[in-house]
C-alpha cells in the first residue's frame, strides 16, 4: 500500500469513466470512499517515484502533517460528493480529477510538481464552478487563477536559478546554508502572491465574490471548504518549511494578511445576503490561517483549518440548499427558516458559534490556544486584531441567527433531505465533542509542532 495510489487510482478512474458515462457517479462515490479508507493503512514515509531519489527525482512526503491534511480534505470531499452527486451527474469525471489533484497538492515534496497539481485542481475547480451557470464569474476566476500560478512559477524559477534545485527539503537546506535572506525575499513574495490568489487574500480575491455569492450546493462547499483547506495546508507547509523571512518581508506579508482579515469581517458585517456573509467570513478565516502560519504555529494552524473547513461545510451546505429552493439569499427571505427545521438550525448554530470562538466548541479551543501562544511571544498587536475581529464576527453571526430563529407569520418552506441532515449533524456533534473534550486535540497540536522540522520560518 503506497500513498501514490491516492493519486493514481482517481486518475485511472477518471480516464476510464468517460467511456462509462452512466456509471461515473458510482465510480466517483466508490473511489472517494476508498481514498478515505486507504488512509488508515498507509505507513508514514517518503515515497520515491520512478526510482530516482530526491532531489534528482520527484518524491512524495507522507508525514503526520500530510496525513491529517489528507484525512480532512478527503473526508470532506467524500461528504460533499455523497450529498451533491445525485443532482450533478455530468461533472463526476471532473470531481475525480479534482480529488487526484488535491491529494497531489498535499502529498508532493517538489515545488514544480506542486505547480502542476495546483493547475490540475485549479482547472477542475473552474469546471466545477461552471455548474453555477455564470460564465463571466468563472472566466474571472480562470484569469485570476492563471495569473497567480504564473507569478508562482516566476518566483520558483528565480529560486532555481539561485540554488539549482526544485525539491522542497533540498531548497530549504540550501537557503539555510547560504544565508541569503534578503535576496530570497523577492521570489518568496512572488510565490506568496501567487498562492494568495487562490487563498482569497486581499487584494487578489475579486473572483471569490462572483463565484461564492451565486454558488450552489456543490460549488459553495467545495470551493469554500475543501479547496480552502487544501490551500491552507500548502501555505502551512511552505511557510514553515521552505520560506525564510527577513523582517521587512514578514512585515509586508503580515500587513497583507491583517488587511484581508479586517476587510473580510467588515464586508461580512455590512452585507445583507446570507451567502455573501459566509463568503466574506471565509475570506477573513483564510487570512487568519495564513497569519497563524506566518507566526510559526504549525499545530494550531492545522486545527484552525480543520475547524474552519468543517464549520464552513455545514454553513454553506445549509445556506446553499435553502437558496436553491427559495431562489434568493437575502436575509429577509430566510427569516424564521429554522423554526420548522430545528435539527438543521441547531447544526448551523453550532457551526457559527464555533467560527466565532465561543466555549464548548472546537473553534474556542483553537482560538484560546493561539491567543495564549501569541501572548507568550510578547506580541500584542496580532491578538488584539484577532479579538476585535472575533467580536465583529460574533455580532453579525448572532444577528443572522436571531433572524433565522425568529418566529414569524410567513415562514419559508424548505425541505432538507436525510443525507444532508445526517452529515451536518454528525459534523456538528464532532465540533462540540472536540470542543468539550479537547485533550487529544491539544496533544496532537503539540506533537505536530515538535515534529515539524522548521528550517526556514521565524520560529
Amino acid at each position: 500500500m503506497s500513498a501514490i495510489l491516492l493519486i493514481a487510482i482517481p486518475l485511472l478512474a477518471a480516464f476510464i469513466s468517460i467511456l462509462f458515462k452512466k456509471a461515473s457517479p458510482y465510480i466517483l462515490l466508490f473511489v472517494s470512499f476508498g481514498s478515505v479508507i486507504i488512509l488508515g493503512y498507509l505507513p508514514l514515509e517518503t515515497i520515491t517515484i520512478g526510482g530516482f531519489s530526491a532531489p534528482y527525482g520527484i518524491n512524495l512526503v507522507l508525514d503526520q502533517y500530510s496525513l491529517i491534511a489528507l484525512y480532512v480534505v478527503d473526508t470532506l470531499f467524500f461528504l460533499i460528493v455523497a450529498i451533491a452527486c445525485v443532482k450533478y451527474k455530468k461533472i463526476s469525471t471532473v470531481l475525480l480529477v479534482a480529488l487526484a489533484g488535491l491529494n497531489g497538492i498535499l502529498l508532493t515534496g517538489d515545488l514544480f510538481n506542486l505547480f502542476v497539481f495546483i493547475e490540475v485542481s485549479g482547472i477542475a475547480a473552474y469546471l466545477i464552478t461552471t455548474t453555477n451557470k455564470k460564465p463571466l464569474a468563472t472566466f474571472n476566476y480562470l484569469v485570476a487563477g492563471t495569473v497567480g500560478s504564473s507569478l508562482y512559477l516566476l518566483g520558483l524559477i528565480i529560486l532555481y536559478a539561485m540554488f539549482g534545485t526544485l525539491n522542497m527539503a533540498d531548497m530549504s537546506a540550501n537557503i539555510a546554508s547560504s544565508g541569503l535572506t534578503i535576496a530570497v525575499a523577492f521570489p518568496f513574495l512572488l510565490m506568496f502572491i501567487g498562492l494568495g490568489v487562490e487563498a482569497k487574500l486581499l487584494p487578489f480575491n475579486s473572483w471569490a465574490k462572483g463565484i461564492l455569492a451565486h454558488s450552489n450546493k456543490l460549488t459553495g462547499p467545495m470551493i469554500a471548504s475543501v479547496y480552502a483547506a487544501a490551500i491552507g495546508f500548502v501555505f502551512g507547509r511552505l511557510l514553515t518549511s521552505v520560506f525564510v523571512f527577513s523582517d521587512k518581508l514578514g512585515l509586508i506579508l503580515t500587513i497583507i494578511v491583517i488587511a484581508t482579515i479586517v476587510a473580510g469581517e467588515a464586508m461580512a458585517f455590512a452585507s445583507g445576503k446570507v451567502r455573501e456573509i459566509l463568503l466574506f467570513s471565509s475570506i477573513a478565516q483564510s487570512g487568519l490561517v495564513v497569519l497563524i502560519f506566518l507566526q510559526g504555529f504549525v499545530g494550531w494552524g492545522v486545527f484552525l483549518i480543520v475547524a474552519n473547513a468543517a464549520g464552513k461545510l455545514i454553513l454553506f451546505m445549509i445556506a446553499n440548499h435553502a437558496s436553491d429552493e427559495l431562489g434568493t439569499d437575502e436575509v429577509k427571505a430566510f427569516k424564521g427558516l429554522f423554526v420548522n427545521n430545528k435539527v438543521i438550525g441547531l447544526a448551523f448554530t453550532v457551526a457559527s458559534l464555533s467560527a466565532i470562538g465561543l466555549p464548548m466548541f472546537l473553534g474556542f479551543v483553537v482560538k484560546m490556544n493561539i491567543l495564549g501562544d501569541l501572548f507568550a511571544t510578547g506580541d500584542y498587536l496580532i491578538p488584539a486584531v484577532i479579538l476585535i475581529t472575533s467580536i465583529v464576527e460574533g455580532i453579525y453571526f448572532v444577528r443572522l441567527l436571531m433572524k433565522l430563529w425568529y418566529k414569524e407569520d410567513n415562514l419559508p418552506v424548505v425541505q432538507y433531505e436525510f443525507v444532508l441532515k445526517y452529515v451536518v449533524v454528525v459534523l456538528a456533534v464532532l465540533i462540540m465533542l472536540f470542543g468539550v473534550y479537547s485533550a487529544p486535540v491539544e496533544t496532537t497540536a503539540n506533537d505536530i509542532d515538535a515534529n515539524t522540522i522548521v528550517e526556514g520560518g521565524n520560529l
Partner: protein
Amino acid sequence: MKNFLALVFTLFLGFMIITALSNNEAFPKYGEADVSTRVSQKYLDRSVNGNPGEIIFREATNLESGPANTVTAIVADYRSFDTLGEVTVLFISSLGVALLLGSTKQRRMELDFHPNFMLKVGSRALFGIILMTGIYISIHGHLTPGGGFPGGTMIASSMLLLYLADDEFRAKIKGFKILESAAGSAYVIIGLLGLLIGSYFLENLLNNGVLGYLFSAGMIPIIYVLIGLKVGSEISGVIDNFLTEESV
C-alpha cells in the same frame, strides 16, 4: 486615467523585477549559468544512480536513462510524474470544453465562406503528409527534439485542415474518445505496473538499449506514442466542439 495608472504600475513592477534580479548576487547573469552546481549536471551525465563514465553516441549501452535527447530523459523518465500531471491538464481541459460547448444533437456551424471542390480534394493529399510528420516527430522523441506533445498537436492540425477545407466534414468523435481514454489509462497502468513489478511507480522496466538507436530507451518511445495519440485526439475533440453547434 485608469490606463495611465496601469501603465505606471506595470513599468514600476518591471523596473522592480529588473533591479531585484541585478542586485541578487546568487542569480547568474544571462549566459553564465553554471550547470555543474545544479541538478541538471547529473541528468546530462546520466549519473543519478551511479556513474557510467563518458557517454559516446551509439556506443553507451543500458544507461540509467536511455534517450539521446536529455530533455526527453527529464520529461519522460526522471520527472515523468510531472508529465502525468500535464497529460491530466490536457484531458480535463478537453473534457471541460466538451462540457461547456457540447450538446446532444450537433451539426457543423454555418459559415459565410463555402470552400470549393479543389480545396476539398487537395487538402486530403496534404492531410496525409501532415499526419505522417506528426507521427514521425512523436516516435522519434528520444532522438530528436519534439516528442509526444508537438507530434500530437501536428496530428490534430491535420484534422483542423480537413475541418477548415471542407464545411461538411466531421470526424468520428466516438473513436477519438475511446482512443483518448485508452491512451490515458495505459499511461497510468504502465506506472502502476512499475509499482507492482518493479518497486517504484513509473519505473522504466525495459532494457535501455544502445544510445542513439531507434529501439532504445526502454518504455519512453511507447509512452511518447501514447501521449501523441492522446494529445492528438484531445485537441481534435476541442476543434470539433468549437466548429459545431446545436442542430434544430
